[in-house]
């Protein structure tokens, strides 16, 4: 039990970062397709099972892994060339380490932190590694010995310099408001209420959250700030010379970086793993009530899902009968979950702490995937910023705004504290 609980956040980090990549790629494709009035991936299958198209992204990953590893002969700095993608990948991956997935769990007087890296310096760690990620891009662009690649790398570095400042400064105003740099304490701060709203960062600090979200987009090189790739201008930017899994690492790194910034935005601005208004001890005390709510929710959603699937899963592949299998799985899983939950809801077992932890994982996951949706939605809505516009936005607008926000926040916080 002890080891399991200590290893759990590490496993979760792996799950949230690596295992979600195929799902993210699938989401990207499906959402893009639906936004553009298309269908998206629906062919690739394993004996008739398509999982709604996720098999396609798994197939793509396999292709990248098994492709020939070639090395362009003009490259002088082989070592840097090879190290660059892994640098981008590793730093994207490491940013995830500080995200708290649930409140600190206390069982038998022992507390287990649900952060992979139990530190209070979460925000600083995030800033450091998010900044390091761009070194992978710069190094790759420079070592590629290619005009387009170096252009992409220069763009990426200039962009990061500009936006990192605004990002850091917008975080400063957040830190002043919360009065802490520990991500866990930030989350528990957000369970209070602010007038009638939950005291989420988004409502307390709207300006800082907009600045942070915009800079997070720029930091992860996602559209509309993907001038570093800019395939319409500079071929593929920094990864022009990369192929096979070396390209795959850059590709995965982008998604993990997106997931990590999404997770940080959830933690700082959207109340993290907590439900609005409710803090952990309230959750533990009212756990039965919440379970009944979840049971009702599970029944309704699975029924809705089954109806939706009956309407939409019409294009049959050869092999197993997909609709039938999914229906059985969904019904079976729902019944199993309801049985387990009602066992605890009726008061037979006592595992409120663990139950609340699982609930908080679920809340965090839902919020995280909502943010993934937003990231993807923005990408397929906005065209790429022109390069000078990116710089202007960063230095002329976001930087002064975030500076002003710090002063205003400081004045308000001092005023409120003085008033009290």
């Amino acid at each position, binding site marked *: 039990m002890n080891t399991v609980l200590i290893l759990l956040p590490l496993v979760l980090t792996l799950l949230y970062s690596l295992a979600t990549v195929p799902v993210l790629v699938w989401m990207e494709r499906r*959402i893009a397709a*639906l*936004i*553009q*009035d*298309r*269908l998206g991936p629906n062919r690739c299958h394993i004996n008739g099972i398509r999982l709604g198209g996720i098999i396609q992204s798994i197939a793509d990953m396999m292709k990248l892994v098994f492709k020939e590893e070639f090395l362009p002969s003009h490259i002088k700095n082989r070592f840097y060339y090879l190290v660059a993608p892994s640098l981008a990948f590793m730093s994207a991956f490491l940013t995830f380490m500080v995200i708290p997935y649930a409140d600190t769990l206390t069982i038998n007087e022992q507390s287990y932190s649900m952060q992979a890296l139990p530190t209070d310096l979460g925000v600083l760690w995030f800033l450091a590694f998010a900044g390091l990620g761009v070194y992978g891009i710069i190094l790759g662009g420079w070592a590629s010995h290619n005009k387009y690649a170096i252009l992409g790398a220069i763009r990426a570095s200039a962009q990061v310099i500009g936006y990192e400042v605004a990002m850091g400064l917008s975080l400063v105003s957040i830190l002043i408001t919360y009065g802490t740099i520990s991500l866990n304490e930030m989350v528990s701060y957000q369970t209070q209420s602010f007038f009638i709203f939950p005291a989420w960062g988004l409502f307390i600090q709207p300006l800082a959250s*907009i600045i942070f979200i915009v800079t997070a987009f720029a930091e992860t090189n996602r559209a509309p700030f993907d001038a570093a790739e800019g395939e319409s201008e500079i071929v593929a930017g920094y990864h022009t010379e990369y192929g096979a899994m070396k390209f795959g690492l850059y590709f995965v790194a982008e998604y993990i970086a997106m997931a990590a910034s999404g997770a940080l935005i959830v933690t700082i601005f959207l109340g993290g793993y907590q439900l609005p208004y409710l803090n952990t001890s309230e959750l533990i005390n009212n756990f039965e009530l919440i379970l009944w709510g979840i049971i009702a929710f599970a029944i309704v959603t699975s029924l809705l899902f089954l109806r939706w699937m009956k*309407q*939409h899963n019409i*294009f049959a592949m050869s092999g197993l009968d997909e609709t039938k299998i999914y229906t059985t799985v969904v019904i079976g899983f729902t019944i199993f979950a309801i049985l387990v939950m009602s066992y605890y809801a009726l008061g037979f077992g006592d595992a409120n702490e663990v139950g609340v932890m699982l609930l908080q994982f679920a809340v965090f996951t839902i919020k995280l995937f909502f943010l993934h949706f937003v990231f993807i*939605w*923005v990408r*397929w*809505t*906005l065209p790429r910023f022109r390069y000078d516009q990116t710089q202007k*936005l960063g230095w002329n*607008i976001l930087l002064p705004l975030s500076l002003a926000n710090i002063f205003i926040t400081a004045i308000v916080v001092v005023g409120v504290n003085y008033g009290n």
Partner: protein
Amino acid sequence: MGIKVVERHGNTFKEKIYLHAVFSGMKTTLKHFTANLRDASNLPTLCYPEQKPTDITPRYRGVHRLTHRKEDDSIACVACFMCATACPANCIEIVAADREDGRDEKMPQVFNIDLLECVFCGYCVEACPCDAIRMDSGIYSVIGECREDFIYNKAKLLSIQGISKEEFSLAK
């Protein structure tokens, strides 16, 4: 006079902070997303090859065919080499021969079109003085197992049916 003064956009405060335009754009895409998620049956996507296109008209440039004469169903081509000359891909191969039945002086003995080289530009159809070559077959997918399968010879080209009203050559 003919000058239309267009108002310059992007200078008002509302436009400068971008957010308004960003959110209205996101509203549009979200509308598409939710509508399509709720009911995907309205999507114009064609699940080819299970569903076939229905909008192939006689003017669609499909695989070539050689037309026949109305009087006796014989080949309309007079082996004038106009099509082969016009062809930018240089993929028409003609060997001319004397025509014995007295209808004309010449006819092709060999008429090969290499569809792997053809760019489906339709210049051959434009060039032909006898309306002997047409691309109104409506065939949009050409399938073969080796390169030779894609070289359509005279017999094959003569056997392809057209989908337009005029079946025979219209040349006088």
